[in-house]
């Protein structure tokens, strides 16, 4: 008789024996059921949260370094004086400086952010417009909804063209039909050439570069038409700022070089901007940090899982020891009619593995149901990782073997004569 049908027969007999004590068997399984269920659902909640965060960071582009202009501390405190104009931030030359000085950088994209009144057909409102180079669309990877992105010709010809973001298109009530139509921004008219998808979320406290952006126009056009001075009116006060570029997005040619490139750029900028009127964020570093956090989280969950499965296993061992005592006579009979020790061990091990595996399967069902319930009722993102199901099932089977072994060996080592006399 080959091994598979024999194993099947033994498993069937094991199940039958376990079914003789349905209540006891189900109570024995509970430990594993809850252990596995808790592990899968906790991991699903953790995975859901961190996946959302990681996704946000990935949207920033993991090969990118984002440098943003900001008022230095000194400027910020001086900014309250009405008459003064604050002058800070990245300069036009910085783009070339970085490109020249840091070898591993393969693209630098400038961004100049202006606010301007816009009108499309009947609709008029203030837009946030970014003047940038065509490479923006290479670095910030977004799908096109309609039309095209800005291209090299637009840049060189200083063409009056605009690409709307999904966000801006929605605000302007623009549709696919808007492509080719004029939109007035500030005092000039632009042709809408495309609509691009945008991200508005936030990841790990870092803004995606296209957050709240309504439209893109060529950088030179923005510079020519809007200049570098911004007037902001706020609660009766007026502040003037001179900012050349609001953002530089730097792409490093490989992931391995991102950190060294960031350090090099930081040194470079410190020379040219000793006031530190900029800040740098490295999505990759955030990604690493988020991943490290997730690892810690997983380790903590893993330990909890381990403990609960350990407790479940001890429960199984406890019951199996009781079962061995109760079935001493049966073991004696089996030994007397010729069962080897190994066969007795096999019999009891199969019973514990069946218990723990069935417990594990029920646990998986619970572990799959709980995240669905959490998502439905608490509106939290959850994601069941297939590996967590496989892992906890595997562990529950292993628990059956490990904690079943001792009772099984004890059963097998009973003296058949003593066992036969047992009442």
């Amino acid at each position, binding site marked *: *008789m080959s091994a598979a*049908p024999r194993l099947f*027969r033994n498993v069937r007999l094991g199940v039958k*024996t376990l079914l*003789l004590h349905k209540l006891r068997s189900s109570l024995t399984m509970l430990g594993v059921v809850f252990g596995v269920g808790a592990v899968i659902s906790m991991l699903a909640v953790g995975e859901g949260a961190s996946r959302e965060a990681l996704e946000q960071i990935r949207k920033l582009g993991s090969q990118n370094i984002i440098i943003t202009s900001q008022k230095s501390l000194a400027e910020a405190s001086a900014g309250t004086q009405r008459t003064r104009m604050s002058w800070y931030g990245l300069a036009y030359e910085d783009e070339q400086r970085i490109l020249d000085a840091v070898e591993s950088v393969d693209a630098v994209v400038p961004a100049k952010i202006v606010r301007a009144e816009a009108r499309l057909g009947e609709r008029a409102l203030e837009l946030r417009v970014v003047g940038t180079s065509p490479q923006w669309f290479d670095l910030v990877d977004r799908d096109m909804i309609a039309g095209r992105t800005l291209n090299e010709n637009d840049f060189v010809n200083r063409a009056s063209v605009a690409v709307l973001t999904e966000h801006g298109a929605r605000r302007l009530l623009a549709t696919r039909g808007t492509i080719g139509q004029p939109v007035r921004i500030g005092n000039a008219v632009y042709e809408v050439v495309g609509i691009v998808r945008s991200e508005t979320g936030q990841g790990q406290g870092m803004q995606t570069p296209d957050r709240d952006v309504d439209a893109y126009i060529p950088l030179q056009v923005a510079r020519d038409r809007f200049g570098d001075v911004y007037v902001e009116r706020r609660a009766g006060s007026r502040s003037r700022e001179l900012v050349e570029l609001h953002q530089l997005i730097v792409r490093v040619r490989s992931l391995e070089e991102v950190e060294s490139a960031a350090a090099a750029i930081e040194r470079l900028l410190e020379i040219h901007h000793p006031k530190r009127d900029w800040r740098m964020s490295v999505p990759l570093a955030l990604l690493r940090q988020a991943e490290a956090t997730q690892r810690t989280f997983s380790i903590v969950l893993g330990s909890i899982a381990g403990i609960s499965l350990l407790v479940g296993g001890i429960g199984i061992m406890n019951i199996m020891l009781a079962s061995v005592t109760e079935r001493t006579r049966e073991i004696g009979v089996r030994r007397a009619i010729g069962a*080897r*020790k190994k066969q007795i061990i096999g019999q009891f091990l199969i019973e514990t593995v069946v218990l723990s595996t069935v417990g594990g399967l029920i646990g998986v069902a619970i572990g799959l149901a709980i995240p669905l319930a959490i998502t439905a009722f608490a509106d939290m993102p959850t994601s069941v990782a297939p590996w967590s199901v496989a892992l906890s099932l595997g562990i529950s089977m292993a628990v059956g073997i490990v904690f079943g072994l001792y009772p099984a060996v004890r059963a097998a080592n009973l003296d058949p004569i003593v066992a036969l006399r047992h009442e």
Partner: protein
Amino acid sequence: MTRAAIEPSLQAPVGTATDRTPVVRLDEVKKRYIMGDQEVWALAGVSLEIARGEFWAIMGPSGSGKSTMLNLLGCLDRPTAGQYLLEDADVGVLDDDALSDIRLRRLGFVFQNFNLIAQLTVRENIELPMSYLGMPARESAERAAELADRVGLGDRLGHRPTELSGGQQQRVAIARSLANEPAFLLADEPTGNLDSATGDSIMALLGDLHAQGKTIVMVTHEPDVAAHGTHQLHMRDGRIERLEETIT
């Protein structure tokens, strides 16, 4: 039926005869148990030969060593001293797995309290030794049905032991003991838990098996039951008191 009493001798094993094939040969077999700080010689030197086809009844008061003797003959235990040859096997030197194998293939056990496994059906109980042998399920199921027929329980295959009378349970136990066609059956007070009518039918069944050539060793304290055997071995204090041979 007459009985000839043969005085036991420590030198020559009892029951020797030249024209018989010995199934069992015990040579100065001793068995010692340690109880607390006391040594107890359950067997204090026993020599005998049991030949193929004989039906021995072992008798004696409690503590005479008859149970130890049966355990030893049944390969559930090994002698402390002396030699036990079962057919060609020297039982004293075999390891646990080899003893299990002998019990599985060459021996059949019948117990006083039947010792069927409660959670298994009649068929599964009879199949048990065959499954340990690794016989395919279909074959063992067929054979279990045959054996159940042979002991008159062909219509009870799906029943649980608890649904059967004592006599029926003992029949199932006998069917189980025959599963792997052993030459040698061991019975420990097989009628001890049965009323006399049922006991008689069980003894008739064992008698049939004996008639079919099985070698049987049975422990009993009832002379009536012992009378079914070809030999009656009386034991006392771990020694053979006397051996009677039934001459038919």
